[in-house]
């Protein structure tokens, strides 16, 4: 195959006169590329997302304007159209609004606590001796590796009212009687257990990811600042955190998404039948759809959940775009 050198290829490859034939198809010019390339790269992802997320999403919206019960699901007949009936029913229900408030509150508390602890641990890992850091990593790896359902069941066992070790340990404190104490009678106590579980399980991802981000912070900057008399707090505020900010934003966003969609933990801790005070939006929708065969009502709740999520996340998406521009 004879290679006809275009001016562009000569410009980029001119210094190497005897190039291998395989190098003939080089980009026309440095810094410019075919407009189709990025789209070709992105298209498999877009097809998959459109087919298995986009299309079901539309079906879900359609479903929320129908009345799909078990009979229609089994027979395959088109369920009757009911307009906004499902929405008026859901939005007029005070139980629904309680669930919304509870889910939001849980998310806020959980995200703040776990991101702060995760950041603290990530910073701590830079400070401790090598052996301690290894111990911390091993501990977190074990926790991270544990499946959510397994973790929830371990917590169910630890907080068991009759034979749980937590009651046994608390009971040993002077003047405290926690024998046969049930953690899920008082919703605040129950939610403390759930929050502890979610934070405990979330720390490894946060701390290890943020620690990986910390290794990207140029140590010369920190050393220079320290030599110039900056306190550790000033170094953290003015050097480390600004550099880490994009990563913190990402992990916070992810934490919000995950915590807002809480399902496994409260579902498993309540043995698959969460009481009304332990319902979140996800379990509430699921219970309506699959527990009571109100598929359309469940879909309506899901649609509202998505809309609520969009509202909550709009700020973060804008943040993401800002970072994208900085990149």
């Amino acid at each position, binding site marked *: 195959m004879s290679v006809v050198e275009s001016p562009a290829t000569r410009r980029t490859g001119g*210094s190497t006169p005897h190039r291998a034939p395989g190098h003939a198809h080089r980009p026309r010019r440095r*810094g410019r590329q075919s407009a189709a*390339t*990025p*789209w070709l790269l*992105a298209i*498999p*992802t*877009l097809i998959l*997302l459109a087919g*298995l*997320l*986009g*299309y079901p*999403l539309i*079906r*879900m919206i359609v*479903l929320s304007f129908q009345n799909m019960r078990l009979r229609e699901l089994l027979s395959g007949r088109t369920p009757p159209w009911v307009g906004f009936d499902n929405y008026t029913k859901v939005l007029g229900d005070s139980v629904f609004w309680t669930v919304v408030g509870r889910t939001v509150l849980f998310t806020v508390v959980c995200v703040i606590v776990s991101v702060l602890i995760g950041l603290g641990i990530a*910073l*701590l890992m*830079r*400070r401790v001796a090598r052996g*301690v*850091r290894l111990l*911390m*990593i091993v*501990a977190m*790896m*074990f926790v*991270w*590796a*544990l499946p959510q*359902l397994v973790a929830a*069941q371990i917590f169910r*066992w630890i907080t*068991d009212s009759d*034979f749980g*070790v937590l009651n*046994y340990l608390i009971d040993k404190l002077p003047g405290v009687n926690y024998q046969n104490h049930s953690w899920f009678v008082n919703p605040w106590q129950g939610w403390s257990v759930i929050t502890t579980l979610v934070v*405990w399980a979330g720390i*490894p991802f946060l701390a290890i*990811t943020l620690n*990986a981000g910390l290794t*990207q912070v140029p140590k010369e900057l*920190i050393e220079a600042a320290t*030599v110039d008399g900056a306190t*550790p707090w000033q170094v953290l505020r003015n050097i480390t955190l600004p550099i880490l900010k994009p990563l913190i934003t*990402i992990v916070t966003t992810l934490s919000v*998404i995950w915590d807002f969609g809480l399902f496994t933990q409260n579902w498993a801790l309540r043995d*698959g039948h969460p009481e009304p005070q332990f319902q979140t939006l996800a379990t509430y*929708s*699921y219970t309506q759809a699959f527990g009571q065969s109100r598929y359309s009502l469940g879909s309506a709740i899901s649609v509202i*959940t*998505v809309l609520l999520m*969009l509202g909550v*996340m709009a700020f973060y*998406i804008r943040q*993401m775009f800002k970072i*994208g521009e900085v*990149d």
Partner: protein
Amino acid sequence: MVATTPGAPPVRRRRAPRDEGTVTVGRSRTGTVVANVIGVIFSVLMLFPVYWVLNTAFKPADEVLALTPTFWPKHPTFANFTSAFNAPLFLQDMLNGLIVTLLAVAGALVVGFLAALAIARFNFYGRKAIILVVLGVQLVPFLALLIPLFLMLQTASLTNSLIGVSITYLVLILPYTVWTLRGFISGIPRELDEAALIDGCTRAQVFWRIILPLTGPGLVATSVYGFIQAWNEFIIINTLNSPAKQNLMAWLLQNQTTRGTAWGPLMAGAIITSIPVVVFFLIIQRNIATGLTAGAVKG
């Protein structure tokens, strides 16, 4: 954690042993001791539930249900494990879970990496729209899509099949994969690409020789997370497939309901279920937090 007093002169000490990227200037000895103690306490607290599940799983039934729990099994036994292993469908569901998870992670990594590359390295019309899509779909509660998804996969004869669940899991972890890899690729200085291009690399070579190796830790971290997500999932597979085509997690759930609170076998089953993930994790663990790009431009 602010251990050194403001303005205190940095403590001079012998050259610390080479520690990758650790700053040693201006750190007091007491501060380090305090940090170490906190680190150890943190590790113990984190590990306690893990220790407790192991402790319980090796206890005979009467020790599990003791009013005064013992912190070590007095008569260690494997009885809980044998009863879990001999349970119907256990091994079948274990295999199913591995197949489904590995297919999903491999697929998401390949597909997601390409999209991440497009977003991170190319400026093109529609880039923001793709970012919006990738970010936006993460907001969709996947469980909400279960009913339409079920109807769709049924039409395609992909319910009660491992392929159907694999594709579903792939899509489940794809947005996260794209977004995280995008971050890692953006972390690689563009100057490296440009230097390689000037030196005569093709774009393909830049990809294979620079971006791919340098994204290694990112690929590992992302795939680990994808593996966890797919292996942990039980609601979708429980809804789409019959028990013979489910994974260990769904098995564990059914096992739990039939056995009620038989804590010993349940904890043993939970340990077995966790082992593949833990092993996989510990093998590749050292690759996770290595900052390969540190110093790449200087060199």
